[in-house]
């Protein structure tokens, strides 16, 4: 059993498991932090951005000044943003039989894998994962394609040149492998390869292996996966949560008795308490609006935003914010809000009960009905007519490099009355803000990451007792900025096996037995002999049929269609017994 680790990002994993002659890819996350090295793409021509000076090398040479721009001491690539793909060279990806997706954030590299590597297999994911994943991809493609950028910088990627650049560009890994965003036809082609599955559905792969998604409690339709044969069990835990938000709670019991547990997707902000963060989010929002400022919330179009809207629904009246307009701007805003209401079966118990009444499970339906929340596909069109300040705007992308958020950063950045509140934990807020410096706007960091923290992990591991734990190397040591916090790492016995990008692990595992079926006719002909109290033996000589990795033992027939009796079988055809 081997594990090929194609991504170094602990929350955007991409691993390939080779197990019993099947090749299974576990997630294909897309590392988008690479985009932080690029200049934002404004929807409306921004004089500030276009006037940024070109970057000049220490020796005064200016050959890179078209590609690299400097802003407040940081250097950015002036080009269409690019993403860091999972490793594609470590093994031949056309040999991958299936891809298992655990949640919609972990499938963003799917088109790169299914459309560029000769992949011919099947992708398995739950329905909400596919639908919301499609929305995320649509938004991504849309926000990049609608700002055509003539320039595509590549000179800086030259190894010799990159060496001369300032950090973090100098240290960026595998820049030659960075790719531009895929297109909608590629997204559609990739998604058409997905087969929908439900929680606790047992899916046979070639008769050799069974895979089963389990509720992971992190997002709508998010799942952990069990990969097992009759004797071996591998659990793949990715992006799980024990907090009660909107999704169905995590299924922990089914993870028990694993031989190997692969653990990825823990919280990225282990020191922050999500509940506290939501409180801070609300109070900062209220304070800004009361002082006449606007609030900008860079966010993904699905996920935590549902919880934030629900909190605000309960909060706005008591905080006297009932007249403040809330805007949700995204090409998929409407779809996201609509889709959230139809996945009753994937929601927590409380929300399910509401659907039985029947009422929409999320209160944002009411916010929309009462006109408190309005959604628009973009800042163009209806929005510009309805736009009233002060207001609260939810929009993407959280990297602040593309999407409508760029426009609002440019628009509101100059006034200290306004506030930008970061809730998504995927990007460092300081890095995200760098190309907008100097900035007068207030910045509040309230990352809300509901995924497992280290205390919950050690409790979980004690509970489910896997024989071996495998995890990204980042989880086996304290975070680099808090090296004294030894509590912020995985603590289990035996210590976890760690992996890093482009590594191949051999999992400690030996298969001993396989299932075989004895046909009733053959079973009848067996003559067991009790040789010790409670232990019987029978010699078996029979025909072995193997089909679809299933083994069956049948009575042997001679050429005339007559059964060869056991007696004769053992005398004539049982040489091992006598030799």
């Amino acid at each position, binding site marked *: 059993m081997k594990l090929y680790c194609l991504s170094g990002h602990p929350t955007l994993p991409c691993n390939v498991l080779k197990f019993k002659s099947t090749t299974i890819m576990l997630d294909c996350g897309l590392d988008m932090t690479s985009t932080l090295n690029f200049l934002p793409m404004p929807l409306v021509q921004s004089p500030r951005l276009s006037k940024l000076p070109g970057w000049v090398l220490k020796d005064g040479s200016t050959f890179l000044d078209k590609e690299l721009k400097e802003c407040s001491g940081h250097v950015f690539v002036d080009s269409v943003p690019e993403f860091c793909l999972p490793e594609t060279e470590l093994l031949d990806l056309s040999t991958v039989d299936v891809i298992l997706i655990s949640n919609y954030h972990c499938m963003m590299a799917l088109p790169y894998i299914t459309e560029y590597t000769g992949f011919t297999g099947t992708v398995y994911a739950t329905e909400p994962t596919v639908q919301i994943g499609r929305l995320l991809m649509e938004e991504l493609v849309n926000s990049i394609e609608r700002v055509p950028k003539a320039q595509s910088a590549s000179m800086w990627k030259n190894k010799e040149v990159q060496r001369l650049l300032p950090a973090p560009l100098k240290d960026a890994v595998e820049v030659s492998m960075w790719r531009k965003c895929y297109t909608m036809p590629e997204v559609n082609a990739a998604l058409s390869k997905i087969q929908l599955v*439900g929680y606790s559905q047992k899916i046979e792969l070639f008769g050799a292996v069974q895979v089963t998604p389990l509720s992971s409690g992190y997002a709508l339709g998010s799942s952990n996966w069990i990969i097992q044969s009759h004797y071996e069990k591998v659990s793949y835990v990715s992006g799980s949560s024990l907090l009660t938000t909107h999704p169905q709670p995590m299924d922990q019991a089914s993870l028990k008795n694993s031989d190997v547990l692969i653990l990825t997707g823990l919280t990225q902000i282990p020191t922050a308490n999500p509940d506290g963060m939501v409180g801070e989010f609300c109070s900062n929002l209220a304070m800004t609006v009361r002082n006449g400022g606007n609030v900008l919330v860079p966010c993904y179009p699905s996920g935590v935003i549902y919880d934030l809207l629900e909190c605000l629904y309960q909060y706005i009246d008591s905080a006297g914010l009932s007249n403040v307009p809330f805007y949700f701007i995204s090409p998929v805003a409407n779809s996201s809000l609509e889709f959230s209401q139809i996945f009753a*079966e994937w929601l927590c118990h409380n929300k399910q009960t509401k659907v039985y009444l*029947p009422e929409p499970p999320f209160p944002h339906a009411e916010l929309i009905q009462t006109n408190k929340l309005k959604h628009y596909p973009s800042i163009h069109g209806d929005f510009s007519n309805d736009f009233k300040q002060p207001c609260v705007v939810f929009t993407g992308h959280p990297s602040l490099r593309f999407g409508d958020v760029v426009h609002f950063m440019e628009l509101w950045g100059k006034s200290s009355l306004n506030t930008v509140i970061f809730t998504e934990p995927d990007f460092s807020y300081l890095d995200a803000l760098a190309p907008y410096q100097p900035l007068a706007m207030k910045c509040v960091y309230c990352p809300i990451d509901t995924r497992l923290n280290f205390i919950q992990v050690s409790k979980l591991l004690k509970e489910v007792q896997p024989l071996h734990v495998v995890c990204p190397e980042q989880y086996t040591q304290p975070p680099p900025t808090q090296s004294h916090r030894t509590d912020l790492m995985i603590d289990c016995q035996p210590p976890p096996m760690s992996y890093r990008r482009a590594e191949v692990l051999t999992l400690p595992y030996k298969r001993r037995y396989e*299932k075989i079926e004895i046909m009733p006719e053959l079973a009848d002909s067996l003559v067991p002999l009790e040789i010790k109290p*409670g232990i019987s033996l029978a010699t078996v000589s029979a025909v*072995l049929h193997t089909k679809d990795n299933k083994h069956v033992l049948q009575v042997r027939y001679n050429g005339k269609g007559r059964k060869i009796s056991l007696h004769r079988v053992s005398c004539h055809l049982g040489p091992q017994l006598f030799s």
Partner: protein
Amino acid sequence: MPEIKVTPLGAGQDVGRSCILVSIAGKNVMLDCGMHMGYNDDRRFPDFSYITQNGRLTDFLDCVIISHFHLDHCGALPYFSEMVGYDGPIYMTHPTKAICPILLEDYRKITVDKKGETNFFTSQMIKDCMKKVVAVHLHQTVQVDEELEIKAYYAGHVLGAAMFQIKVGCESVAYTGDYNMTPDRHLGAAWIDKCRPDLLITESTYATTIRDSKRCRERDFLKKVHETVERGGKVLIPVFALGRAQELCILLETFWERMNLKAPIYFSTGLTEKANHYYKLFITWTNQKIRKTFVQRNMFEFKHIKAFDRAFADNPGPMVVFATPGMLHAGQSLQIFRKWAGNEKNMVIMPGYCVQGTVGHKILSGQRKLEMEGRQILEVKMQVEYMSFSAHADAKGIMQLIRQAEPRNVLLVHGEAKKMEFLKQKIEQEFHVNCYMPANGETTTIFTNPSIPVDISLGLLKRETAIGLLPDAKKPKLMHGTLIMKDNSFRLVSPEQALKELGLAEHQLRFTCRVHIQDPRKEHETVLRVYNHLKGQVFPFFFYPPRNGLELIILR
């Protein structure tokens, strides 16, 4: 020999009161728990005393499965669980769990409030009963206990309708509930994988019917409604609040829009809007097309169809009214029917099956003078049309499902005996499997012959698959091993390993026989010749090369 026993308490050679007991590998499962629309006495509910005379049903049943929310499949549930007494798990899909209590409450109201019956289940009992329900996802494998597992498949009959597979070890039964093999305007087609159950229990409502294409039926329906409305007549369509109603509403709504018609369409009972709301929230259970477009346009938001008020029935001019219930046996549909029956300009369209004993069944079988309550005679002059819109599989569909699932035996329920007989023959002819059709209370026993799962050591398996002249994995191979039976575990290992594990000494038996050969050559040469000759044979001889030049030992 292991056996599966099936006893219908209802729906055996009959439609209505579906309730089937299945015993499989020591587990007892009850499939559906319905009421009979044709009876108002004890016969309306299944006779649960068959399961046990005294004592709680919980001790005798491992679980109850409800296939969909129609009352002939779930109407007896509160009576069964709260009045007779059952505390075990009841499984159904999410939409069924959501909608079923509403229909039960409706049923209770008609029976208790309108007909004044006592000794019937109460609202509280419905609530308590629903607390015992566990909702299942499609295709989810639910482990009822360590051995018994069930799995739901899409049935396409009504919103949330499901077929169930019940499995213990390698024995299994599949139960279809009601299903539909052709997608319609709001639901998809039933689907099951090649699960090869020992027994498939299928409904057979339309056992002898092969229906023409849906498009023709739809065109026919629209034409009839249109003609009646054009000549100023009123159209009554008795339906059940959920299911066919939504399909026909979508049909009329699009037709009205296209033809720009002005005649009002009404939907009786307050349930409508609520019902449509269920469809909106459970849109993932509808068909592909509706699911794809729901963000732009939700098909269940109707522009032309409005709520009905009792007073409207006397309004002059044309109108179309959907009214519940579907078999004209009670309630608003019957009231409207009585008002409109005397006018030959009007029309009643029965879009579904009617159980014997209902007014619907009577007028469909041609009766034009009906005796109503109080000896009143109602003369039916209005046109009576029947259109099979009920979403049951027809004969073709049933055969198709059998082909999909590849069962070893088939058992027919939920149909009329005569029609079943015909279908039974057809199934036995085409698939060469046994087909049964027990009456209510009659037990069918099916013998299964399960193979025995055994653990084989990987070493032995690999060795055996590697041997052979051709490296052809598909070709059957001979294998020799020793089966060790200890407690309840069965392990197949190589003879050497078995000996080693059990600390047994190896014995060798040697069979020899003397052969006289007349050969002028030297002794040594003769032996060598025989040896070389045998070496070339393909038979699996085990022999030792000549020793001492004197002796040749051949082991065979």
